[in-house]
Structure formats: structure tokens, C-alpha cells
């Protein structure tokens, strides 16, 4: 346990939370699955912790004709068990349902997951493949950042220190399919060696492909958006050859490192294998 006393506040409104965070090295606490660990091991010693769980405004999911809005304090278990979401955005519900273990999924929040910015996390690639946008508030106002432009490096995002993620917005796109696949050679609860999210959007006749997104985790400092691979799939209208070419091209987009989940070469190979499988699942 850290030796210095850390103040604990549980604001009940966004304004209160923004006021509370503007203090020395205060930090926000969501579900705590990452923050409590960092705190316990003294990797962080904040003067004040601002817990967001008492803030009811951040805990809802709303779905309209054009947009899904998920409050930043919504848990992974709630996301993974939403039937409505699994119809509209299966890549997201699949990713949310395979994180860690049941206890992590019950505690971990979508806002916390994005702010943490560990490149091995399952949910960010799914959300990027679905064109998600992060909405934030700070004392300076509010802004919206596409998740594809949110990550700057390992554990680093564009968020300012006192900026609060309020919600994640996902467009509801007609004729879009999505899938998420992960590969864990070790235990079920581990981070993946590689995870691949794919989305494929067809035109209004449901015949020609107009948009493809392929996003990988575990194989770089941030989630990797494989745009050249996606372009191949569009050009070939997802014929079998285009899928194989796209999967092969992924090896040039990723930037993996050796660790206990595999060597860099192995991760590159698995990126190809799982990209192909994710695309096939998306198109099935």
C-alpha cells in the first residue's frame, strides 16, 4: 500500500467531478481493474482519487436509429450481455465478453478501458472498426475525438490530465457486419497474442462492399488500423484472393515485440492467420 494518504471523492455530477479533478495529481477511478492495481503496487501515488461510480449520468446505454451511445461507466459485462448491441455491433459485444474473467468484466468500464490505453486490450480495436467516437468534458468545454485518432502511444492518449470521458458514440450503419477474434495460446483470461476486429459495410443493395476496417491489438504500441489490407478487400469485393492478400499485407502494418505471448515473428504470422479468420467470420 502507498504510504501517503490518498483522498477519495465520489462526486454525483459531471460538474462536481471536473471540479474535484482539478487538484494536484488527482486521478479518475472507474471500475478500478487497472487503476487499483497500479495504486496497490505504488506505480501511482495520487493525492486524490475521484471515483465516477456515483455519477449516474455516465452509466446508461441508449440506442437510436442512427447512433449508439454508451456511458463511460458502463461495465464490460453489461455491454457483452446486451442483445440489442450484439445484433448491431457484434465485434464490440464479443470483445467485451472475452476480456479477462467474469470479475474483470463486472468491474471494468468502457471509459476506463479507453483511457488506460494498453495496446493489448480487446475492446479498442472493435470500437475503431465500428468508427466509434469518444466524447469528453473538461473545465475548458467538451469535444469529440474519433477513437482512430485517440491513441498516441503505449498507455498514452490525447486526453488532457483533467479531461473526463463521458461517453462513446458508435454510428449505426446499414448493411455493416463486424466480428472480433482473439488468439490466446496461454490461459483464457490472458491478454491476447493478437486480436483482430473487422467490419465490412455493403452498399444499399447489399452486394458491393463500400467500406472495410481491419484493426489489430497486441501487435504494436497502439491498436493498429490496417488500411492497405482493408483497401484490398474493397478492391476485390471480398473475393477469396483479396481476403488472402489483405491478411498477408497485415504483416507489414503490425509492429510486434517479443514477449511471453510469442516472438515478434510469431505474432506477425498469427496476425495474418487471425485477420483472415476475422474477415471470413465477418462475411459468413
Amino acid at each position, binding site marked *: 500500500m502507498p504510504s501517503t494518504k490518498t483522498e477519495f471523492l465520489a462526486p454525483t455530477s459531471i460538474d462536481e467531478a471536473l471540479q474535484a479533478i482539478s487538484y494536484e495529481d488527482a486521478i479518475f*477511478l472507474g471500475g478500478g481493474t487497472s487503476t*487499483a492495481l497500479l495504486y*496497490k503496487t505504488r506505480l501511482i501515488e495520487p493525492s486524490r482519487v475521484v*471515483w465516477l*461510480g456515483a455519477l449516474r449520468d455516465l452509466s446508461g446505454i441508449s440506442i437510436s436509429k442512427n447512433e449508439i451511445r454508451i456511458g463511460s461507466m458502463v461495465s464490460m459485462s453489461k455491454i457483452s450481455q446486451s442483445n440489442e448491441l450484439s445484433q448491431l455491433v457484434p465485434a464490440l459485444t464479443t470483445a467485451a465478453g472475452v476480456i*479477462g*474473467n467474469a*470479475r474483470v468484466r*463486472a*468491474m471494468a468500464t468502457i471509459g476506463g478501458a479507453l483511457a488506460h490505453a494498453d495496446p493489448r486490450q480487446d475492446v479498442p480495436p472493435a470500437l475503431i472498426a465500428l468508427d466509434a467516437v469518444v466524447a469528453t468534458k473538461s473545465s475548458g468545454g467538451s469535444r469529440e475525438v474519433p477513437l482512430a485518432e485517440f491513441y498516441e502511444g503505449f498507455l498514452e492518449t490525447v486526453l488532457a490530465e483533467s479531461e473526463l470521458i463521458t461517453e462513446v458514440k458508435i454510428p449505426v450503419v446499414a448493411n455493416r457486419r463486424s466480428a472480433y477474434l482473439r488468439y490466446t495460446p496461454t490461459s483464457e483470461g490472458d491478454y491476447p497474442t493478437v486480436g483482430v476486429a473487422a467490419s465490412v459495410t455493403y452498399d444499399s443493395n447489399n452486394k458491393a462492399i463500400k467500406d472495410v476496417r481491419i484493426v489489430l491489438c497486441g501487435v504494436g504500441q497502439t491498436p493498429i488500423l490496417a488500411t492497405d489490407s482493408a483497401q484490398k478487400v474493397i478492391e476485390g469485393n471480398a473475393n477469396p484472393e483479396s481476403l488472402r492478400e489483405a491478411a498477408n499485407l497485415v504483416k507489414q502494418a503490425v509492429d510486434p515485440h517479443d514477449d511471453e505471448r510469442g516472438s515478434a515473428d510469431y505474432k506477425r504470422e498469427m496476425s495474418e492467420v487471425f485477420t483472415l479468420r476475422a474477415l471470413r467470420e465477418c462475411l459468413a
Partner: protein
Amino acid sequence: MKINFTLNGKSAEIDADPMAMALDVIRDLDLTGTKEGCGVGVCGACTIMVDGEPVSSCICVVGTLQDREVWTVEGISEKMPDLIEKFIDNEGMQCGICTPGQIMAAAAISSVDITSEEDIKKYMAGNLCRCTGYQTILNAVEDYLAIN
């Protein structure tokens, strides 16, 4: 800081550092059924139930339990005697260190949709048994779900 919550069905007020981990606070209340295993939220030995869902008490900041409904293995043993009986019937334990966590995970299993044996395995996968006595644990959980 004073923290008020429901503990094993009764209202409780404790005076604790809100940044202490729930595991330590609960054990200091002489509820020592909750065990520390890995200490990093991986093994499941310290599982408690918060608002019906399983939580790793070793990485749960106790201040976040304000106004919530908390169950430990002591309370669940009284509330769900059938579950305990199924663990005994099936010999769903070996050395016993993971058993309270296994029971708490099983007790919280109704918080998710379970439609197959595979679902039970995936759900229970978060609770490690270093004796590797998984089959008898799964048998106990399946038996329990069959009667509930």
C-alpha cells in the same frame, strides 16, 4: 471515512481508509473465508459479490462499496446451502484455498446467461485451482444449476 453498505444481508457501517482494498477490510471484520491468492485480480480466490456480480476484492477499493450490496462466502453459505451441499457431494475441492472463490463465482453465475456446459466452463475459467481439480468443481456447479 465511514462507509455504509449491505454486508451479507445486513446493513453495515465501517470506518476505513476508502482506498484500502475490500479484501483486507473484510478479513479485518473476521470474515476470513475470503482468501488472498494472486493479489492482482487473476486467480479468483478473493471473489466477493457486489450487486449480484462477482468482484475481485483484492483490487476493489473499499470506498466504491458505499451503498452497495456485498456478499462474502460466509453469507452465501447461509443463503445458498444447496450450493455448498453440491460442492461437498461432488468433492468439488482439494486443498481448499480456492474453494471460497469457486463458491462465490458459482453463486454469481446467474448474473450472466448460461445456456451450455461450455458457457459454465468459460465463466468458471476465471477461478484458478492449482490442484487442478477442475472437473469436480464443474460437476458441483452443473449439479447446482440443474436444481436451480
